[in-house]
Structure formats: C-alpha cells, structure tokens
C-alpha cells in the first residue's frame, strides 16, 4: 500500500534559524502516528508544514519535498484551500469561533460553498456524533460555543475539522489544556477516528503516545532521532537519546 504522506529531506528555516533538519518520514494510511519530543524540538513546526500553516510566517523557508498521496503540496499549482480541506488541524488550545455550536461546525461546510440547509444540518449532526459531543449539545445548538467547557470545546473543534471530510487530521497537543476525563474522551475519539482518517498527533505525554498510536517518531533539536512502531520504540529503543527521553532522563 502506498504511503499517504511521504516527507523527504525536509529542512525548515525561520529566517536564520534552522528549525527542522533533514526530516524523512513516511506515514501510513488510516493510522495514528505520534510525534514526541521535548518542547522546542520542531514537532509543531513539522505538522504546520503539512498543511502549510507556516506560509503565514514571512520568514518561513523550506527545502525538500512533502508528498501527500504522491503529490507535492508545495507545488505552485496546489491550492492551499484544497490542501487545508484535505488536511485538517486541531490546535493545542481549543479555539472555537465565537458563534453558535451549530455555526462552528457548519462554518467549514459553508465556506466551501455548501448552501443546502438540510444537508448542512445532517452533516453537522453526523460530525458532532463522530466527535462524541452530540448528546451533550443537541438541545442547545444555537448557544454560543464559548459557553462550553474546555473539553467540549476541543471536541467541537474536532467535529468542525471532520465536518469538511479531510483525509488527514493533524493534532497539535490536543489534550494539553484539558483535564484527565476530557483527555480520555478525546483519546477514545481518536481510536474511533483512526479507521477513517490518517491522524498525526503531537504530544508531550508519552503514555498518550502509547495509548493512541501505532507509530511514533521521536524529535530532538529539529531532527527525527528514531521512528517506528510505538511498542518497539518504547520497549526497545535503538538510540541512546530515545531511551534517555522515554525513561525521563531529560525533556
């Protein structure tokens, strides 16, 4: 089976600083991949390269290739709008829009040109159900999303992301601002979603990586030190630095 995502010799710079160095990684279809590593090691920069969110930073430069389904996403003929529809993103801090719960989920559908009210309503319901939020909000869809709890807001952001039917979902430490119960709910969701989506999750929490992902890559100082099956990486790390990190000797 071909890889969904192939990254070859990727280097990223912000001005003079060399953030990502010679990144090579292939990511499988419909599977969860965790990116672990200490703060500032380039994990977030890496996933923001995958949906071209770094384009908004004026000093951003890159070389190397990022292929999604065999297509270089930095090709001049690639429409960023289409790319971001295909590669959704959930942020570290829940960031619902100050709109109603319904409008938050409908937002992506509407900006992509869907006008049919019935279809929008159906897709909103489906997305909220997939995000395991429907039962909690079905009676207050017209209320502002800002009134939800942090965990509910993050599940709403996931619902908002899957509403536009992406193929890849990037999650940038989606649970770091949440309590343990909300974290469990999000992890349960990731387990359900992985059958239909390719998920790449950045996490500081190594237990979380072992719980949710099949593959893990360990980032350090902008390089991938080691990557492979999660079980193997945690049980029998090859590199000394990986072992030091997962046993808590630094980071």
């Amino acid at each position, binding site marked *: 089976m071909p890889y969904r995502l192939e990254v070859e010799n990727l280097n990223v710079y912000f001005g003079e600083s060399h953030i990502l160095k010679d990144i090579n990684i292939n990511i499988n279809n419909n599977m969860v991949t965790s990116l672990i590593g200490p703060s500032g090691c380039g994990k977030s920069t890496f996933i923001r390269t995958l*949906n071209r*969110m770094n384009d*908004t930073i*004026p000093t951003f430069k890159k070389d190397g290739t990022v292929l999604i389904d065999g297509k270089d996403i930095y090709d001049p003929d690639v429409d*960023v*709008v*289409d*790319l*971001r*529809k295909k590669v*959704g*993103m959930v*942020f570290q*801090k829940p*960031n*619902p*829009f*100050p*709109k109603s719960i319904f409008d938050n989920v409908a*937002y*992506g559908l509407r*900006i*992509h040109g869907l006008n049919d009210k019935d279809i929008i309503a159906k897709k909103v319901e489906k997305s909220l159900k997939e995000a395991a939020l429907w039962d909690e909000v079905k009676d207050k869809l017209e*209320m*502002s*999303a*800002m*009134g*939800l709890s942090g965990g509910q807001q993050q599940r709403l*952001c996931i619902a*908002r*992301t899957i509403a*536009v039917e992406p193929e890849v979902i990037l999650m940038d430490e989606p649970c770091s601002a949440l309590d343990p119960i909300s974290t469990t709910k999000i992890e349960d969701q990731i387990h359900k979603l992985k059958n239909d989506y390719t998920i790449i999750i950045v996490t500081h929490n190594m237990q979380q990586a072992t719980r949710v992902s099949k593959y893990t890559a360990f980032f350090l100082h902008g390089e991938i030190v080691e990557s492979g099956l999660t079980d193997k990486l945690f049980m029998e790390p090859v590199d000394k630095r990986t072992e030091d990190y997962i046993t808590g000797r630094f980071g």
Partner: protein
Amino acid sequence: MNRVISPKNSQKIMKTIFWGSGIFTVFLLILIIGYILVNGLPVINLNFIFGQPIDNGAAGGILPFIISTVYVTFVALVVATPLGVGGAIYLAEYAGENALVKAIRFGSEILASIPSIVFGLFGFAFFVVYLNFGFSVLSGGLTLALMAMPTILRTAEVAIESVPKSYSEGSMALGASKWQTIYQVILPAAVPGIITGIILGMARAVEETAAILYTVGAAMQAPVSIFDPGQPLPLHLYTLATEGISMPFAYGTAAILVILILIITIVTNALVDRYTKKMMGR
C-alpha cells in the same frame, strides 16, 4: 531602615487618592449634566420638541434643528464608517509594517488632533466653495465625516487587532481564504469594538459646532434635500447664547442635545452588551 511611611499607610493614601479622582470625575459629570437639565428641562415640552421656531428661536420649537442634527450626523456616518472600518481592516489585516502604514497611522493621529475650526475652514473652502455644494447638509456632513473618520479608524483597528489569533488560525486551517476569515470570523468578533468607535465618531459629529459653522448654513427650516442648508442643535445653541436671543431656550436646546447623546449611548451600549453576551455564551 527608617521608612517615613509604612507600606500599609502608603497603600491607604494612594487608594484614597485614586478613589477621590474617580469620585471627582463622576461628580463633575453629574454637576454639568445636572446644571444643564435643571436649567433646560423647564422649557422642554412637546411644543418645544416638535414645534417650528418663531423669531429666530426666541419662541416656538426646535424641530428643524433636531432634524438637521440627525440628518448631518447620518451623512457623516454613512461616509466615515465604511472608510474608517475599511482603513482599519487594511491596517490590521493586510498592511503589515511599512512606511505607508506608519504614514497612515501618523496621519490619522494628526487628523484626530486638528482643531475642529480648521476642519470647518477646510470644509468651507473645499466642499462649499470649490465643489460648489453650498451651505448644505452635504457640506456639513462631509466635513464632520473627515473629523469622525480617524476616530472610527483607530478604534476599529484596535478592535480588530484584539481578536485572538487563534480564531483566524482555526478558520484558515479549515481552508477559508483570508477574506472569508476576516468577513466571517474576525469582523463579527470585533463588532462591539467597532460599534464603540462609530459611537465615539458619532458623538464627535453630533456635538461639533466649529466644523459646521462655515459649512451647513443657518436655516430656520428643516432640510429636505441633501443640498439644503440646515442648523444642527449645537450651532443653534451657539446662536441663541451669543446673540442673546433666549437663554432659557439655549438651556433647553442644550438639554435636548445632552438627552439625545445619552439615549444614543445607552441604547447602543445595551445592544452591544446583548450581542457580546450572545456571542460569548454568557
């Protein structure tokens, strides 16, 4: 070490000073508004509000002047709001930091601090004479628009910039274009601040005298066309007082002006409050 004043006492003293300043401000406000109302309310009745002026305003009512005020302010806002908000969107979202942007900011600051009589003179030379709009609601409204625009622009810019970056990131990550993000996420979130700017601009237009002195004329009838002259309340008040036509009516006019501004401010604050509550789910 010998302290002259202990931290506890200095805290008490400063708190008292700050409290005093606050109270003094409120006291001044109440004093001025109270003085105007005490002197103005006795002449206010339905005939005063809805009647026509007699003998240059020495008797009768002030309806034409109320209409002039509303009309001129409306023209000013219709022109100044899109320009101000549009400029604010450009500065906050598109411009970045360059020489042009600095020039625009500096220019709008200078514009906001130019004495209003200078605007009046410019309005007279440019709108009344050069563009040949004559003494009219249009000339007065455009002059007031020039004055209100920098206020609207600066306030709206701050409002747009204070919308959290995470909103626009969330929108861009869903594949929205920059304009979709601005129009559908950033502007709705900035509406309360933008409205505040429009209200500040409007207050400046409603209460302005010098800028309309040379531009709007001094008609005793209510303007109908935009090219008709008018006489907004502050100008009428100025005439009543300086030409000694009627001091009681001057106070009455001032009271109407104050009440008008109070109503506008209170109603918009209430509406903005409701909007914010709905948006933020509180």
